[in-house]
């Protein structure tokens, strides 16, 4: 019954929150926002996206903290590289190919947002049959093993949350 009225509870809650952020809080706006978010939830239900299932909510703040720290660190690293100028010998960029164990499409979408949101890595192509991923990295250090970096920092946590 609840599933029929609110098919996407997380989406609807986020929409109500957004509505209240954009307007001042009042009872009328709360009602209007709830109505709009319910209608949006029904509309999304007709598009049949794969429904996200969160297994462990407690790992989400941990992941958010890791991502925040990484964004700040890679901002500083990329700013340093950009001040060095093009074709400086102390860095070289290139393509790398990785293998992902994640299979859940929502988890892969979150991983794509994380990797593209942090400066210095760009997600280019993903092949979902055997989970291969093509990245372009601005500072491709020879000693850094990107496969284990991504596996240890993001993939394990994402698998705990989604699978």
């Amino acid at each position, binding site marked *: 019954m609840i599933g029929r009225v609110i098919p996407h509870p997380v989406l609807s809650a986020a929409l109500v929150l*957004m509505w209240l*952020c*954009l307007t001042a809080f009042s009872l009328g706006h709360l009602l209007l926002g709830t109505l709009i978010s319910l209608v949006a939830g029904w509309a999304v239900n007709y598009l049949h996206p794969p429904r996200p299932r969160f297994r462990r909510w407690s790992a989400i703040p941990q992941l958010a903290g890791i991502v925040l720290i990484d*964004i*700040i660190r890679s*901002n500083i690293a*990329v*700013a340093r590289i*950009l*001040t060095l*100028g*093009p*074709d400086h010998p102390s860095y070289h*960029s290139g*393509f790398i*190919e990785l293998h992902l164990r994640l299979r859940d499409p929502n988890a892969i979408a979150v991983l*794509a*947002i994380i*990797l*593209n*949101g*942090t*400066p*210095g*890595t*760009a*997600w*280019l*192509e*993903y*092949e979902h*049959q055997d989970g*291969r991923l*093509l990245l*372009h990295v*601005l500072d491709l250090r020879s000693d850094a093993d990107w496969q284990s970096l991504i596996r240890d920092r993001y993939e394990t946590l994402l698998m705990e949350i989604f699978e």
Partner: protein
Amino acid sequence: MRHLETLPPWAAILIAVFVMIGATMTLLGGLGIVRLKGYYQRLHAPTLGYSGGTGLIILASMLMFSLLEGRWIVHELMIGTFIMITSPITLLMLGRAALRRDRDAKLGHDEIVPPMLRAPVMPQPDEASATAPAPAAAPPDRPHR
């Protein structure tokens, strides 16, 4: 600009530092987009403005208007969340489009890109020419940019 005088000194200094670092980050991204040589390197430059620049300027704006109005103003978080979700998507689309265009033999290469991760199962006429060696066609007079 009378409203700037009403801010407490610590807040004014903090906002000034945030705004200056954020604007400098964005300027560095702009410099990178002009100076870097290859397209895939240039793809990394604007992310500096998307993450660092946007985050710091939004923090400064939130702090300033919250102190001026005397209540929590969280409008700017909307922009922050929006940019955080959409800018990876635009970069992903641009990267995939560039990869596809660079692999297309008809458009002419100036970047060396790795081959396709998976050969197409049912090669369509236009995709077959992109992966297989191009048939002996007359080179176009003007390369398609």
